[in-house]
């Protein structure tokens, strides 16, 4: 039993060592190349979604005001 635990612990240590060795290499992917159209598209999409949310809020306010007026 002790031997199995020892082997498992050492395997875990080895995996941990491999992770320490490999993880810093992912820092290479910190730089991204994106086309200006994509960035503009994402920007427009962001504005659109915010506008849609605002319209929904205004519609709700309008509805509440109409109900108050009827009362």
């Amino acid at each position, binding site marked *: 039993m002790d031997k199995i*635990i*020892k082997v498992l*612990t*050492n395997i875990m*240590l*080895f995996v*941990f*060592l491999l992770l*320490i*060795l*490999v*993880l*810093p*290499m992912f*820092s*290479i*992917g*910190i*730089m*991204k*190349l*994106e*086309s*200006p159209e994509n*960035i503009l598209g994402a920007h427009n999409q962001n504005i659109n979604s915010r506008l849609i949310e605002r319209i929904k809020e205004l519609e709700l306010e309008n509805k509440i005001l109409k109900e108050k007026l009827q009362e």
Partner: protein
Amino acid sequence: MFSKILIKLIDEAIIPAVVVLSMRIISIVIVSQAVGTQLSLGTSGFVFTDQLLFKKVNSYSVLIMIICIALGILFILAKAFMFHNTHIKPGVTARLFSYNLHSLIQNSYDLYSQGAIWISYLFMLVLVTGGLAFFGSVYIWVSTFGFFTFLVCIVLFIIDIEKEIKRDDSEKPIYDTDTSFLENV
């Protein structure tokens, strides 16, 4: 319970990991400023829109990383060649002690574990750079430079290991095969 060599290797791997990570970020900032681009930091990292600029900044950033790791390996190799406790000259030992720099004298266990870790980092960086060069994200000469730096480091490391092996050979006891003195007994 724990394997001593694995613990030692994990211990030695932390410093180069921090060096690689920090040099990547610092080098991107420095090279971008040198090239004259405005860095835009998005959710996925530094975003570039110009492909040529991206390739240039990426290449010089990777080059700086390779040079930093190579400098680390050269420091270890310098310690291995000059201050290795197995083949350090007595004069150098005395001088180091007089300057209170005796911590530079290290044994094979420390030196080879450090060397193995730093060379592993350089090897993986060369692999990644090769892949990036293949896909055109990095200049080919950067990956070639990394590959030759790796080769030089490996060769120098092997030379030191050979010195160590030769030392072991020379220290073997030499027995006198002349048994004539026994004949008179």
